[in-house]
């Protein structure tokens, strides 16, 4: 079976004057169609750089290759192909909930009326019924995040990249949103790559957890999560869950320590000028 997305030897070096920082080095990752992959790694390991490359905002260094559905994709072809949800919700304050939710679809060329009809049909699933005409500043953080997710879902792409969508939420809202996201996802089974800092979240959501190394980032480790779906909240106390968590904690901590000691080294130690 052809992978939904195949990342081959992607590297990225940022140059600021004579200073060069290698953010990614030979990142390799393959995601099957309909798979939910979660990506964890220490701060500054290049997760967001990888995302920016996958959505076409940042060109990778020459040498690597990206394939979607088996087709080679040059960086400038990627814009508009992947549904991307950044960390901040970035809702437009002058648009209502409904009009924010259809923004991506509207830009994609769906006529406004049709886009609104579609949005109205799924507004309940996103828990926003009754709030269609509200403006973003009238919403709680959790609701804003749901509008941003709805915007991402209504941009009908098979591949979705979610960059720490629940990072700013309190623990309780966060776990509610995780369960809700799984429900929404299980209804459509689109391919998801989900960045998080939180190992519990990564295991709870993912079919597979992928760990990135400290900078320069590459895929250090991956492990399948064989917990059955749909997953109940209690799954976090299951022995398999605990065992996965123990393994992952060890690896992530090792990388975090490397990242931490790299921070205490002068930055130039990484750079080749």
């Amino acid at each position, binding site marked *: 079976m052809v992978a939904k997305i195949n990342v081959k030897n992607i590297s990225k070096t940022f140059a600021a004057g004579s200073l060069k920082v290698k953010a990614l080095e030979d990142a390799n990752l393959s995601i099957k169609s309909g798979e939910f992959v979660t990506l964890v790694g220490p701060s500054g390991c290049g997760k967001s750089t990888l995302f920016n490359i996958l959505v*076409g905002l940042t060109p990778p260094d020459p040498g690597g290759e990206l394939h979607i559905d088996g087709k080679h994709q040059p960086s400038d072809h990627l*814009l508009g192909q*992947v549904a991307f949800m950044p960390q901040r919700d970035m809702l437009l304050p002058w648009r209502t909930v409904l009009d924010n939710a259809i923004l991506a679809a509207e*830009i*994609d060329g769906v006529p406004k009326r049709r886009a609104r009809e579609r949005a109205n049909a799924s507004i309940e699933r996103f828990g926003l019924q009754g709030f269609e005409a509200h403006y973003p500043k009238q919403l709680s953080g959790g609701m804003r995040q749901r509008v941003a997710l709805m915007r991402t879902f209504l*941009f009908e792409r098979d591949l979705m990249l979610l960059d720490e969508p629940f990072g700013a939420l309190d623990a309780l809202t966060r776990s509610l949103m995780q369960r809700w996201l799984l429900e929404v996802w299980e209804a459509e089974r689109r391919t998801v790559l989900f960045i998080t800092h939180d190992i519990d979240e990564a295991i709870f959501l993912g079919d597979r957890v992928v760990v990135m190394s400290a900078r320069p980032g590459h895929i250090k480790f991956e492990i399948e999560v064989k917990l059955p779906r749909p997953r109940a909240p209690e799954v976090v106390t299951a022995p398999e869950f605990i065992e996965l968590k123990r393994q992952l904690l060890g690896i992530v901590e090792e990388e975090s320590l490397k990242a931490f000691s790299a921070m205490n080294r002068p930055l130039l130690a990484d750079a080749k000028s």
Partner: protein
Amino acid sequence: MNAEVRPQSIAAQLVVVPLLLVVWEGCVRVLGVSADKLPAPTVILEVIWELRVSLAGAVGTTLLEAVIGLIAGTIFGILSGIVFSRSRIIERMFLPYFVGSQAVPILAFGAIIIMWFGNGIASKAVIAFYLSFFPVAVNTLSGMRSVGQDEIGLLRTFGASSWTILFKLQLPAALPAILTAVRLGASLALIGAIVGEWFGATQGLGAVLLTAMYEYRIDYLWAGIVLTGVTGVVMYGAVSFIQNRIAWWHAEA
């Protein structure tokens, strides 16, 4: 929402007007101030009523000049702000001249404008335009520049062209700043229209003020001052109203 538009605060502001008028009237009568120095409000109102037809014509003329100038200045200001925001080179080439143009006082070349554009409405509208386009251009530019790269990037991942980004993101984001500049421009346009009338006009509030000065009619002069003030407040209020209607979200940004 904007604190200025709360009904209670408008009511509180309006209470001041009759209060001020009563104090004014009382002081003039009690202290016996001569009408040459400061006529009582009732005297001024009487003059305005007496001359209502010609004064209404004057207000209409000046308002028309100022509004035409303001609309032209707003359109030109927004367009040049857009052009500057899309090209650093054009901005570097032309923006310094925009700034420089504002350093030359209109009083220095008002006469030339009258010679070029005639004695009628056009020349005053040109001066009103000249005073009002600059703040609009600058605020359009800075409003559009205030949009973050992350927001622009997000729209690009939806496949947006740079024109789509302009119309769906940058211009709406700049709208509160643009309208703030138009509000300032409204006051400047009125000044421009009146200054233009001073350089040569037979109609308009500027002409009323000038004639009253030459004829030493203090009561006419005060009638002109009051109507100029009212015209200014109306223009400012109209723009504020529009701003609160179409760019109400600026409290958040």
